[in-house]
């Protein structure tokens, strides 16, 4: 399957195999290792951190601050599995533990491990947003938790727009143009830990230039929908609320990256009437700005 512009192959789990391939993309194999000693292969170990309902810790041979393209490291998810990034072979190795299931493997590899790999090696920077394609461009939705991102993303999908993500997106800069790199072809319009949701067919696989970021702001059910272009520090709210990977040692780098992005990508605040009956109105407000209907 295509995930963050890479071809991911789960070699040992048939239920996770797809028939989708892409010759021009890098292939990352996800393969089982029956036995793998984290202590023998890595000198450093972190404490336990809570994540996605479990506890996990990092292993590496040098501090994460020194991470680059050739940086192997590992994630131990307590009682569930270990995931190892072999940077030389560019493969993911996993070792099963007592609570392992293929679905949990899929979740941790696609949702967490691959974004960490790609951010640490500086391929991309990640945002926690929903995103769909409109007129061959990516539109991003940013908000607090329970702010309406998933609902709005889902509504756009119901109206035929291809999904880039309903959770995290990779951002790639090419000069002054910023591209959104889609996540994985699953959609989760409900809140459930450790699941990616159901498969999505209408899924964008190629990076798309970003048209705009919409920062969703809840409002009273009856108020008018307003769209305001943000400037200066207000633009940072959209990114500040959308942090997906939060290593302390990368904060300055991410700050600089998103400051540059803010100079080149429009960011709008849109008031969202908290009334499901008016979702279509919100939808048309956004779409008509990007792809105005033909005048008759």
């Amino acid at each position, binding site marked *: 399957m295509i995930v963050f512009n890479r071809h991911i192959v789960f070699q040992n789990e048939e239920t996770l195999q797809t028939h989708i391939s892409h010759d021009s993309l890098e292939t990352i194999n996800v393969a089982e290792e029956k036995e793998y000693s984290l202590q023998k292969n890595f000198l450093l170990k972190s404490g336990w951190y809570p994540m996605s309902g479990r506890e996990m810790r990092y292993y590496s041979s040098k501090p994460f601050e020194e991470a680059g393209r050739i940086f192997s490291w590992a994630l131990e998810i307590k009682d569930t599995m270990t995931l190892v990034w072999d940077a030389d072979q560019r493969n993911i190795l996993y070792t099963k533990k007592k609570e392992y299931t293929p679905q949990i493997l899929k979740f941790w590899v696609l949702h967490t491990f691959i974004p960490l790999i790609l951010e640490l090696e500086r391929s991309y920077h990640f945002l926690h947003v929903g995103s769909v394609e409109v007129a061959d461009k990516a539109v991003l939705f940013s908000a607090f938790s329970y702010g309406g991102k998933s609902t709005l993303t889902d509504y756009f999908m119901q109206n035929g727009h291809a999904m880039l993500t309903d959770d995290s997106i990779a951002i790639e800069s090419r000069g002054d143009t910023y591209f959104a790199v889609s996540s994985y072809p699953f959609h989760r319009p409900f809140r459930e830990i450790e699941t990616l949701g159901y498969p999505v067919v209408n899924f964008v696989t190629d990076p798309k230039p970003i048209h705009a970021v919409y920062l969703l702001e809840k409002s009273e059910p009856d108020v008018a929908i307003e769209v305001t272009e943000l400037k*200066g*520090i207000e*633009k*940072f709210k959209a990114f500040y609320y959308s942090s997906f990977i939060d290593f302390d040692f990368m*904060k*300055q780098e991410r*700050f600089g990256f998103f400051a*540059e992005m803010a100079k080149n990508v429009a960011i709008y605040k849109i008031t969202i009437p908290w009334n499901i009956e008016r979702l279509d109105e919100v939808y048309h407000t956004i779409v008509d700005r990007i792809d105005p209907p033909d005048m008759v």
Partner: protein
Amino acid sequence: MKYIIQLLIGLILRIWYNSCKNRKEIMNLSQKIIFVDTVFSQEVDGEMVLLNMNNENYFGLDEMGTAIWQVMQENKTLQEVLEAILEQYEVEAEVLEKDLLIFVDRLVKSGLIRILNDKC
């Protein structure tokens, strides 16, 4: 006797240190700015956006604040900053001096900069 001398030296040093410390807290135009190394700044749409890594607070400076911040980064005294801004903007020197000291005081209280008395 040696012990008494050591005590006296310690006392003199402490008096000197407190004098310097107190001098730093009373701002005047001969002072320079030290930028706190956990504060990052980027200009966006003509506004300076500051991130204080210690508390992850963002700050935005308007056009005048941005101009002052940029001049301060040239390692000037507040007097030199004042003169540079007077060249850029049509404003009375007395008014600007007062506003500059208020602005710098706010930056200090927000933990974004420190001020240095060049005699200490």
